[in-house]
């Protein structure tokens, strides 16, 4: 197969050159992230609406969540965003080995986040705070606190699903990086996966204060 503009095998045939491919790929990723904003946006809207309707119950509900674990997980995610951007930077400056180790660090931190999250979920289960038939928590406004817990599980659950998918994608990239597939000339998949990973981090940056912090003072 002949290519007139770029003979590198990482440039797909429909693109003029590696630069155009990079811009098209990142733009496509951003368009996907815009749909993700609206995907999470529906849940954020539901949260804002019910919090406006039942402010006291939502304030009481936030007291069920563990701020220490929430803050710790925020730090873990921010750290993972830093290692993610380190992977991209390593590719840009051609430090091939460090791409792999930075991706591995990101995967590990993402896993730590999910482990801490699962401990929180288990704790809620034991306390009877999981909405539905398992909800046994008793209080005058328990029904409305259940609404808060529904928002909590729906939003953090969807967020955790995104983390699991992200870890899957990064694992694939780490294998490719181990094989030396990426470098200064080609790192588009790492950049695109990074955009997705940082977006998931941003979602948590909003979830943490909304669910854990508001109503504590």
């Amino acid at each position: 197969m002949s290519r007139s503009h770029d003979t590198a095998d990482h440039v797909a045939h429909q693109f003029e050159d590696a630069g155009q491919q990079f811009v098209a790929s990142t733009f496509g990723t951003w368009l996907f992230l815009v749909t993700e904003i609206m995907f999470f946006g529906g849940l954020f809207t539901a949260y804002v609406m019910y919090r406006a309707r039942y402010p006291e119950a939502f304030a009481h509900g936030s007291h069920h969540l563990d701020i220490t674990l929430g803050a710790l997980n925020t730090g873990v995610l921010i750290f993972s965003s830093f290692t993610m951007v380190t992977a991209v930077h390593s590719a840009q400056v051609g430090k091939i080995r460090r791409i792999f180790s930075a991706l591995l660090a990101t995967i590990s931190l993402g896993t730590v986040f999910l482990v801490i999250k699962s401990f929180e979920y288990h704790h809620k289960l034991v306390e009877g705070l999981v909405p539905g038939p398992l909800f046994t928590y008793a209080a005058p406004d328990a029904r409305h606190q259940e609404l808060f817990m529904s928002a909590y599980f729906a939003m953090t659950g969807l967020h955790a699903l995104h983390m699991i998918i992200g870890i899957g994608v990064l694992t694939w990239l780490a294998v490719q990086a181990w094989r030396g597939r990426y470098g200064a000339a080609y790192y588009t998949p790492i950049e695109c996966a990074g955009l997705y990973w940082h977006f998931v981090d941003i979602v948590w940056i909003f979830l943490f204060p909304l669910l854990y912090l508001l109503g504590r003072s």
Partner: protein
Amino acid sequence: MRAYLFVFATLLLLTGLTVTAAFIHLGAMNDVVAMTIAVTKALLVLVYFMHLRHSPGLTRLSVVVGVFWLVVLISLTMSDVATRGLLGVPGK
């Protein structure tokens, strides 16, 4: 790389700040403070980690459009919820 480290440290600092501020009683201002810090953190991630400062205009426009529609979604919904009780009509 130094810029990334600085952003990383700032994000951790802002996380500590928002936790501290959550325990100070400010009334409705607690929401404002928490959201201001969250938006600042999100902007740092967008501009530095997601490379918006080096991105083409088309990419930046797509981000603005995404946030714009989110604002439409939340503000139109809330304008309905907040004003529905004002009308003395059945089925409100």
